[in-house]
């Protein structure tokens, strides 16, 4: 027998959020979502007022990625909703479970070009896993439960629920019906384990290609056990970083455009590539028809549509990695291959002996990584600093490295760090940003101030849009078009304006002391690290080029 209670649509929303364990929400109020913000006033949920809806969406993403919970964000209709969309696109590209609630003009006004009206339901089609527009308050409860289920089921993703203002105000009886939210609940054909085992046992030079799906499936232990038992050398995508133990002797680092030389050479030479929760992204493969040219492929994924999308799989293992990975866990005799990979890793290791007094960003990030407390969560923005962080920092879990992988969204890092810090108040959170990226959502410094979040910001500052400048130098004959940022604000003063302690360093000898000071500081801290504008990210596989033909620093 259902337990029935009369509520408004807005207060019903909070009842459902409570049932899904939602404790924290990121959002920004406005006209068409006012009944929901009125109901928030009486709610137990903690709302974090961001200073832009895009910041709210990225904070919800950071929250979800750092905590493995569903992130929730609110925005009003029209511009509030459109400001959320970049965040939803980011969450879709990186398969992040998000429930976004938007206010909408009242149903009677819909379709009349009303004030702050936009067809966000239509706009959502390309940037959400699914979306709903509630036009009958009696559908609201079911729709909200469904939204959480869809966000988590199978390949995770963002779900938008658009709620017109009159639906928020309408009276409704809560049904408290049965609902289920089962992570990875999908119907898939049984895994072809026999064929995969045959390929494994025949392989002389296998490589494990680890993607973000491992973390999303919470299959870290199963992956590490598989890697250890089989002894297969492994490489990681950007989003897969942290899944493999970074100190595993058979781990070769990130592959792809800015991957390690050892990782890319091993993949190009391998005779069996075992893709685990990875999707053969163009930044990983380089020239697709020359990627891993000698390899047969075993492809583990939960998304049927990823199989054969970019690279034909010899064997596809569809379903939950936690179940499927152990089925292939057998010891292999590949000593010579392991030894070769380890030799490559040692021979092509990173060099930090940078000449001169100017600060070398890779060395700074390595030192931050070496000194940061265990279980620190690092977020990044997008650009050179992002690739340096991926190359030179070590992460022991994918929830400790949050970066915009698929969408590559500048402005991600600072609000994502806010979300991460809210979800893990006792862990250190460091946002690694660039002087271009930080300005994309710099208003979120106000959110840090308001909630006294002890987020640390390492701002790698070359007064350039560094990655674009690098490409202009390398591939556009040095024609530096619109990449100069030498008129940036004084970042130390800017941080101080938000009551955030800040310091600028310009020389190598200042690095160690500044990192210690930042990490020892109890509250938020911005460390501005001035670097040479001409530093490039190496290695670099040029576009449409095979991964073994990378450009290197000479």
């Amino acid at each position: 027998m259902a337990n029935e209670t009369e509520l408004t649509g807005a207060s019903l929303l909070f009842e459902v959020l409570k049932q899904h364990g939602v404790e924290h929400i990121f959002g920004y109020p406005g006209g068409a979502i006012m009944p929901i913000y009125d109901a928030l006033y009486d709610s137990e949920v903690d709302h974090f007022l961001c200073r832009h809806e895009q910041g709210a969406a990225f904070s919800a993403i950071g929250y979800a990625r750092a905590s493995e919970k569903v992130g929730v964000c609110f925005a009003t209709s029209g511009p509030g909703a459109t400001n959320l969309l970049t965040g939803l696109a980011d969450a879709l590209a990186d398969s992040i479970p998000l429930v976004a609630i938007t206010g909408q003009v009242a149903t009677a006004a819909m379709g009349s070009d009303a004030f702050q009206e936009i067809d966000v339901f239509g706009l959502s089609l390309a940037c959400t896993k699914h979306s709903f527009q509630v036009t009958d308050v009696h559908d609201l409860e079911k729709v909200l439960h469904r939204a959480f289920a869809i966000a988590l089921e199978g390949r995770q993703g963002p779900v938008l629920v658009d709620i017109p203002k009159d639906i928020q105000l309408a009276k409704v009886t809560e049904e408290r019906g049965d609902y289920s939210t089962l992570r990875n609940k999908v119907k898939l054909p049984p895994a072809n384990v026999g064929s995969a085992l045959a390929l494994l046992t025949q392989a002389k030079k296998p490589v494990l290609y680890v993607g973000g799906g491992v973390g999303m499936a919470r299959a870290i232990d199963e992956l590490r056990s598989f890697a250890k038992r089989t002894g297969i050398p492994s490489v990681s995508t950007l989003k897969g970083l942290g899944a493999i133990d970074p100190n595993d002797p058979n781990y070769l680092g990130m592959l792809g455009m800015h991957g390690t030389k050892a990782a890319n050479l091993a993949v190009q030479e391998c005779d069996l590539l075992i893709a685990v929760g990875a999707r053969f992204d163009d930044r990983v493969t380089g020239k697709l028809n020359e990627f891993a040219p000698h390899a047969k492929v075993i492809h583990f994924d939960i998304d049927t549509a990823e199989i054969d999308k970019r690279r034909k799989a010899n064997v596809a293992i569809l379903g939950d990695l936690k179940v499927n990975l152990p089925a292939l866990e057998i010891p292999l005799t590949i000593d010579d291959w392991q030894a070769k990979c380890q030799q490559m890793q040692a021979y092509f290791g990173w060099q930090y002996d940078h000449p001169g007094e100017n600060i070398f960003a890779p060395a700074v990030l390595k030192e931050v990584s070496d000194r940061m407390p265990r279980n620190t969560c690092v977020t990044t923005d997008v650009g050179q600093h992002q690739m340096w962080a991926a190359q030179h920092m070590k992460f022991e879990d994918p929830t400790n490295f949050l970066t915009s992988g698929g969408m590559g969204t500048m402005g991600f890092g600072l609000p994502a760090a806010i979300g991460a810090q809210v979800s893990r108040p006792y862990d250190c959170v460091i946002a690694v940003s660039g002087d271009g990226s930080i300005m994309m959502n710099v208003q979120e410094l106000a959110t840090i101030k308001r909630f006294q979040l002890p987020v640390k910001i390492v701002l790698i500052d070359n007064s350039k849009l560094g990655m674009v400048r690098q490409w202009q130098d390398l591939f556009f004959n040095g024609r530096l078009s619109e990449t100069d940022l030498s008129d940036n604000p004084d970042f130390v003063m800017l941080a101080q304006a938000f009551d955030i302690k800040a310091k600028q360093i310009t020389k190598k000898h200042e690095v160690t002391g500044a990192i210690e000071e930042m990490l020892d500081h109890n509250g938020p801290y911005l460390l501005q690290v001035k670097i040479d504008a001409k530093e490039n990210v190496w290695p670099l596989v040029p576009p449409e080029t095979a991964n073994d033909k990378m450009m290197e620093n000479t």
Partner: protein
Amino acid sequence: MNRYQLNITADDKQVVLERILQVARYRGFLINGIHAQVNTKNSVGIIELLVSSERPIELLVDQINKLIDIKSVKVDNTVMQLESA
């Protein structure tokens, strides 16, 4: 350019047709024709979608199948044969 007919069944839910058309366009398929009707008794929609593309049809089938409200997607091979005859 290869031409295909997809026979799709879907729950009669909000904007399901828009979702199918958006996916077809985004994944590189030209929409040559569409016929859709809803069985109001069981709220199931039946959609016949004629598309053409250089890309393999499996790409589109997999992506439409991912849509939440889709029940089934089948390629009508008889139509393909007729088009290529």
